[in-house]
């Protein structure tokens, strides 16, 4: 075979490879669009007024779960106390070797990190940042948590504002990395891991003698019924991923229990304070949950969380 033939064959193979890559790119991008996008067909790919009209009809949909940082702030605001025994021990990092377990525990460790830092637990904050770093490295997230970030964390360990900013940056680095590299399924699994950890910490901090219908921490747990729909929508965007299918099964089990909780909300009235320019969304919510349902929820969350961490 002469050099010219080899070059020709190589070029053809490269062209085919690039075509496949291009097609894959288009197909993954399509998953982000709403159903109305299906109206755009190849026949319309002619640059004319109709195309401009069609492009203008495209809609991007985002589903946003509470980040680990927000989860920790919600817990603290609701009166949660710090209990390190509830966190996933950092010694467990070596157990997580699959993409699914590393993604789930990146979410879990980042939530533990946020929780520890909000309660000014300096050593735990450093330990959980290192555990999160190991999970991120295992998933191939380059520079999400690098030595510079660890150094900044240690240098500012008594400055909570800086610590919060560093944690926020690491969460953003991870989520944007998955987005840029077309690994949205893993990004979703990370978020669900963090969400389950938040639920696990919260439900285990509720005292046994508490009035279930008049407790802020219990209310925030019940509020997760509102978030369930978002969790499903996020997971359903990545149904072609086997790990996502497994996680959906867990969330469906939780939904069965959350369905037994009743929430009714009055109409929302926005009222803006002219001095601070902050609007308060005024509304009333009625919640009803039986002690039996709370026990079922607690047990199910424990089983799912232990399944993710052990």
């Amino acid at each position, binding site marked *: 075979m002469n050099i010219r033939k080899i070059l020709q064959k190589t*070029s053809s193979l*490269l*062209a085919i490879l*690039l075509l496949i*890559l*291009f097609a894959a*790119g288009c197909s993954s*991008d399509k998953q*982000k669009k709403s159903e109305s996008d299906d109206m755009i067909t190849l026949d319309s790919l002619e640059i004319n007024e109709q195309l*401009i009209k069609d*492009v*203008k009809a*495209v*809609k*991007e*949909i*985002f*589903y*946003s*779960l509470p*980040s*680990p*940082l*927000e989860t920790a*702030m*919600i817990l603290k*605001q*609701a009166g949660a106390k710090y209990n390190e025994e509830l966190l996933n021990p950092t010694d467990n990092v070596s157990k997580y070797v699959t993409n699914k377990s590393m993604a789930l525990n990146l979410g879990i460790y980042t939530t533990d990190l946020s929780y520890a830092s909000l309660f000014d637990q300096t050593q735990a904050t450093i330990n959980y940042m290192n555990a999160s770093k190991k999970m991120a490295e295992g998933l191939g997230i380059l520079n999400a948590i690098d030595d510079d970030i660890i150094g900044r964390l240690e240098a500012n360990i008594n400055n909570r*504002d800086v610590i*919060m*900013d560093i*944690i*926020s*940056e*690491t969460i*953003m680095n991870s*989520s*944007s990395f998955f*987005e*840029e*590299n*077309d690994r949205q399924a893993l990004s979703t699994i990370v978020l669900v891991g963090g969400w389950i950890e938040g639920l696990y910490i919260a439900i285990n901090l509720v005292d046994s003698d508490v009035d279930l219908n008049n407790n802020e921490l219990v*209310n925030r747990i019940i*509020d997760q019924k*509102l*978030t369930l*729909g*978002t969790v499903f929508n996020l997971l359903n965007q990545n149904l072609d991923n086997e790990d996502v299918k497994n996680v959906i099964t867990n969330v469906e089990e939780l939904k069965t229990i959350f369905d037994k909780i009743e929430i009714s*909300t009055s*109409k*929302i009235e*926005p009222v803006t304070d002219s001095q*601070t*320019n*902050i*609007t*308060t*969304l005024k*509304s*009333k919510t009625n919640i009803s949950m039986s002690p039996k349902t709370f026990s079922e929820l607690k047990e199910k969350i424990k089983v799912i969380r232990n399944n993710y961490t052990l």
Partner: protein
Amino acid sequence: MKKIFQVLIILTIIALMPSVGNAQCKSFAKKVCKAELTPYIHDGNFNAAILTEGEDAELYKTFYAGQNYRIYICGSDALPEIEFQVLDVNRNVLYDNRKFNYSKMWDFKLEASQQLIISLRVKGTEGGSEELLSGCVAILFGIKEN
């Protein structure tokens, strides 16, 4: 042979365009938009996309009672103004930035947790140019302790 290489170069550029756009979007959100959340802390979530004038987007999120939130909508300079509304689940309008000179941010808190919809639209250029402008649009959330 020359034609094959030309096709290869074009396909390579097209294939790489989405990731380059996303990387630029992250850099834009991190360097330009995040600072505008101060004194609120960015929650860390990354919600950004390349949008073209006239395109719209929606974000669904639960906001929790007792928390202080700032929504910041950040569009690259190349884009026209961005309209944004905050709606409840029945799509009643709670906030519309067109009434506030296309303000990019809204600070609020809630008496009861609610799922809300952030609906935004990149305005079309007046006169309707054939050349559509595109750019990064980021939706960022800031949270603040009481």
